[in-house]
């Protein structure tokens, strides 16, 4: 067992390297108040290297190898190697389709929406390149309802110039937490039902309408567009050798300038907070990774690299890049209970242990947070009964989040059991949408 700070000093031996062009890579350096048009996009990033008349498949093979050398992993949360996913779809029988996953059902996260609202062409470039690599005949962009108009305009701009070799269209994403899960995205497109389906069959072999389907996060494809332009070596000038590149983060809560920022993977957690203006008040904890993520103590987490390796001693992962700063004035149990109730209500309603178990857990945790009589033993029993029991990872993610809250806010549990709370405000920190209809 080593402490967090010991761990930090060990892996600080491989510090993140500053890029030649520096960061941000994906986001425009300054936001002009409207999305970067095609001309501005090309002025900033240059034209794609796909010269006409060249053998498209040979090009695509070279790009795939470059993406593999870059070590790019999915930025939607699971961090799966992008090249392996591309290769699986390319090797599958049938006419593949590329689905850009910009659903971002996580209410606290805004990075894909901000990316598509500011640099839609970078995402579309990446999607079209992925179509070339996989042999896909179609690109479908699933974007948050707030940004579909912007993406539509970008597509129209390209269509007028006959820029893309495959048809590209945008579909508004469903407004649900589980809607961003890969099989739920495909189910939404095929049947209008934004809930996960059983795996197997694997989407790479049997996805949308039975076709081999690449479901790839929007930010990941934006990185693809830059790797094909600038190469793997360039990509690796940011990040760590094991987790190369930059990533978008959404920093919210008690920071001075909340918002979406871009950081090199492995940047110290405190620097990630500083990118959002730094703590606005004394902090109690951070939620890292999202609503399936992990509560970590502050300031113990400050010096850890923001990477899977760096956060491992606190059992956290960057996932889709959420960092929420919980002020010392707020109650961590109340925040955990509020989000637990939201996650229970957002169950797709398909699997019994998720439907009944998460509801029971959220109710019991709500009693704990409110200082009413509750059984922690029952709560823990139910958490272990629900873990791993769904068709998708929704129950597992919720359990992970709730367990980390019970662990980190353990002292608060005793206080609440005696009818007290160390929090001094009821103002919510983690955003939970209020549902008007069901």
């Amino acid at each position, binding site marked *: 067992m080593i402490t967090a700070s010991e761990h930090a000093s060990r892996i600080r031996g491989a510090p993140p390297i500053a890029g030649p062009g520096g960061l941000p890579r994906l986001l425009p350096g300054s936001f002009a108040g409207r999305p970067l048009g095609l001309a501005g996009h090309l002025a900033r990033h240059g034209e794609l290297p796909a010269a006409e008349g060249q053998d498209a498949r040979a090009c695509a093979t070279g790009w795939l190898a470059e993406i593999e050398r870059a070590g790019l992993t999915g930025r939607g949360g699971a961090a799966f190697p992008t090249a392996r996913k591309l290769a699986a779809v390319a090797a599958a029988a049938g006419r593949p389709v590329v689905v850009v996953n910009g659903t971002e059902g996580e209410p606290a996260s805004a990075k894909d929406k901000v990316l598509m609202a500011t640099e839609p062409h970078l995402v579309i470039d990446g999607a079209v390149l992925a179509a070339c690599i996989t042999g896909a005949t179609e690109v479908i962009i699933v974007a948050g309802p707030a940004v579909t108009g912007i993406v539509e305009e970008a597509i129209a701009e390209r269509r007028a110039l006959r820029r893309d070799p495959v048809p590209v269209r945008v579909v508004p994403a469903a407004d649900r937490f589980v809607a961003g899960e890969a099989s739920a995205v495909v189910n939404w497109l095929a049947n209008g039902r934004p809930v996960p*389906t*059983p795996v197997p069959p694997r989407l790479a072999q049997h996805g949308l309408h039975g076709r081999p389907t690449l479901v790839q996060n929007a930010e990941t494809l934006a990185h693809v567009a830059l790797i094909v332009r600038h190469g793997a070596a360039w990509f690796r000038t940011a990040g760590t050798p094991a987790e190369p590149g930059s990533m978008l983060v959404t920093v919210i809560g008690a920071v001075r300038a909340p918002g979406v920022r871009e950081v090199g993977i492995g940047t110290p957690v405190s620097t990630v907070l500083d990118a959002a203006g730094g703590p606005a008040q004394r902090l109690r904890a951070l939620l890292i990774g999202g609503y399936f993520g992990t509560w970590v103590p502050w300031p113990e987490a400050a010096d850890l690299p923001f990477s899977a390796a760096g956060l491992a001693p606190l059992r956290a992962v960057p996932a889709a890049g959420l960092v929420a700063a919980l002020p010392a004035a707020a109650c961590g149990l109340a925040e955990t209970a509020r989000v637990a109730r939201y996650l229970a209500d957002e169950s797709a309603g*398909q*699997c*019994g*242990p998720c439907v009944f*178990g998460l509801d*029971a857990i959220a109710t019991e945790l709500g009693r704990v947070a409110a200082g009413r009589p509750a059984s922690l033993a029952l709560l823990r*029993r139910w958490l272990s009964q629900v873990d791993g029991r769904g*068709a998708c990872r929704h129950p597992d993610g919720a359990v992970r989040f709730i367990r980390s809250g019970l662990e980190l806010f353990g002292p608060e549990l005793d206080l609440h059991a005696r009818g007290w709370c160390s929090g001094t405000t009821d103002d919510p920190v983690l955003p939970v949408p209020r549902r008007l209809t069901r």
Partner: protein
Amino acid sequence: MTAERVLRVNPIACAGRGLCAEVAPELITLDDWGFPVIAKGPVPPGQAAEARAAVRICPLLALRLAARRTAG
């Protein structure tokens, strides 16, 4: 060489009728809401008949015996 078999439940199809746990109590228990929890690991050779009975009795065809998945 005989392949090891595992019991798998499709949690979407399962409605918690609980018949499986009646016929194969060593392999399947029920959680606090009546949904089946499958014992970890492959079905022991001595309990293959119970496993098959559980698969057969499920009215929703939510249980199956599958070859134990290797890597990936």
